[in-house]
């Protein structure tokens, strides 16, 4: 409020805006005001969070939670964090590689390349992740055994994956399909003029992609991929059906032991929440870095 009125007429005659020293002092005051407003804003948002958290806490108090039980057994569930993060990181990495080539395929004039990419996206985006996990874990080995029986045992044995490998493959393929569209949109967001200009300068198609288009597209792609990574951390819980001891499996199976379902599920939820808060924080820093070139 003060800032907008201050633009035209500074309050009182404290500042003589024809004087350089006063201009600087006035500018400093405005900036201090803005900073204070931002600070106050975050305090208010923080208060809203605390209020909502209190409501949540109040609601959970109806559940008769056994907090001693949670603290005693948290260690067992926390041991699953490594697997959850490991599976998610490996999957997002492989999915990014798949998505990059998928996007090139979707944008390609080559009929075969384009057809393969669009078929892949349609198939893996159009079927549930859990079903994909079951098919990869159960179905691939059967195909592998048939191939091995025909004399190519090295190729057949390659298809017999462990539970963790199956999980990473399913997550990578599924997220790769969604991320193909993210990569495609990112590449398409770069103005066609850039391609034409690069072509006029004598750059090849690949050079243009690598030196001109991708650096610009990545600024759009990376925040979206980070978003996918946060979703992935939670979807990685689906690999628990194959008996991978990640957070959800440990919480779920442990809960059955003493019928402490709410305790263990809330613990798992809290762990995922904290994990994603860390990821969000890391992501915000990364985005800040990517946006550096936008600032003047």
């Amino acid at each position, binding site marked *: 409020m003060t800032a907008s009125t201050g633009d035209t007429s500074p309050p009182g005659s404290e500042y003589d805006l024809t004087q350089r020293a006063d201009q600087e002092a006035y500018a400093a005051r405005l900036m201090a005001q803005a900073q204070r407003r931002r600070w106050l804003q975050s305090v208010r948002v923080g208060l809203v969070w605390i209020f909502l958290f209190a409501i949540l806490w109040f609601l959970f108090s109806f559940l008769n939670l056994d907090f001693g039980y949670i603290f005693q*057994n948290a*260690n*067992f569930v926390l041991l699953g964090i490594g697997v959850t993060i490991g599976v998610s990181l490996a999957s997002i990495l492989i999915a990014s590689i798949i998505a990059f080539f998928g996007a090139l395929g979707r944008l390609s004039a080559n009929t075969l390349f384009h057809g393969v990419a669009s078929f892949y996206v349609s198939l893996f985006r159009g079927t549930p992740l859990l079903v994909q996990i*079951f098919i990869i*874990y*159960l179905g691939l*080995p*059967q195909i*592998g*055994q048939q191939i*091995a*029986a025909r004399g190519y045992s090295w190729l057949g044995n390659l298809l*017999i994956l*462990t*539970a*963790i490998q199956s999980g990473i493959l399913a997550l990578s393929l599924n997220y790769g399909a969604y991320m193909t569209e993210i990569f495609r949109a990112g590449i398409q967001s770069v103005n066609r003029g850039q391609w034409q200009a690069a072509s006029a300068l004598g750059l090849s198609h690949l050079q243009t992609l690598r030196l001109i288009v991708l650096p610009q597209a990545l600024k759009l792609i990376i925040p979206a991929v980070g978003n996918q990574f946060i979703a992935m951390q939670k979807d990685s819980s689906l690999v*628990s*059906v*194959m*008996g*991978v*001891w990640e957070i959800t*499996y*440990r919480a*779920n*199976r*442990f809960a*059955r*032991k*003493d*019928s402490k*379902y709410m305790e263990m599920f809330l613990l798992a939820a809290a762990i995922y929440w904290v994990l994603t808060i860390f990821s969000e924080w890391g992501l915000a820093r990364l985005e800040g870095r990517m946006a550096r070139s936008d600032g003047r």
Partner: protein
Amino acid sequence: MHTSRKVMAGLFMLLMVAGCAAPAAPGSEAAAPAAPAGETASGEVAAADLLADVQARGKLIVSTDPAYPPQSELVANVEAPADTVCSGEERPANQFSGFDIDAAAEIAKRLGVEVCFVTPDWTLITAGGWAGRWDLSIGSMTITPERMEKLYFTQPYYTTPAAFFVHQDNTTFTQPADLSGRKVGGCSGCTYEAYIDGTLEIPGETIEFVVTDAEFAGYDTDVPALEDLALGDGVRLDAVLTALPTGQGYIADGGPLKQLGEPVYFEYLAGAIDKASTLDTTSFQAAVNEAIQAMHADGTLAKLSEQYYGTDLASAGAEFDLAALNQ
């Protein structure tokens, strides 16, 4: 498989000898029976036998879903023994406890190897096509015709009566037949669903379907169904059909339920072996069956049953005629 009958008989004889030798000299000599098989033919043939494979690697990999106390449950915060041969996704026996776990460990011991557990979802265990990821299921699995298409069953190591449970506040139901037309919950894909549908067949048993036209509500496993029933009489469910020990265990933990009448049928619970295995399982089946019968004969299983269920559910399993399954 028919052609291998003679081979099976021969290997069985060999195993009888090996079986006698193994308990007397466990450890280093346990792998000895595998050696002659390796010498008689090329290395490939020796590796093609599951029993030889198990003994060569010194571990029996068993699937278990630790979601079913007191059959199989997790033990938290226990370090794996330093000398375990279990690796990767396999877990040693001390990470679990339960009747299935102890029975599996005993079978492995009698085969002269260590037991290692993997924990795939129950659906994946019953689906068959294990791709050699594990050798044997010791998961209190009921013998059903559908499962026999995918799996070979071992001699039953115990039995489970299936019984209805209702909320303790209920006064209108006095016998299972009163549940006709009501909403019954249970583990979906288990025998309870087939019983409610009136399609359950248990080889070697005549089943009387006393409950008709009931609506079945399927759950992942039995406990969530019991939890839903515990919310109140008729709130989400009128009754749950589950294993007697499961229901009784839930009540013992303070669940507000009661058993309704006598058990409606008995399940024979056996180990299972993958039919789609690329290795020859005949000698392995024979060895596991022999171990289980020996555990019946010397009272090991009856004692375990007393320990976990407070009653002998095991002995009836010894009388089951496995040959009648024609598998």
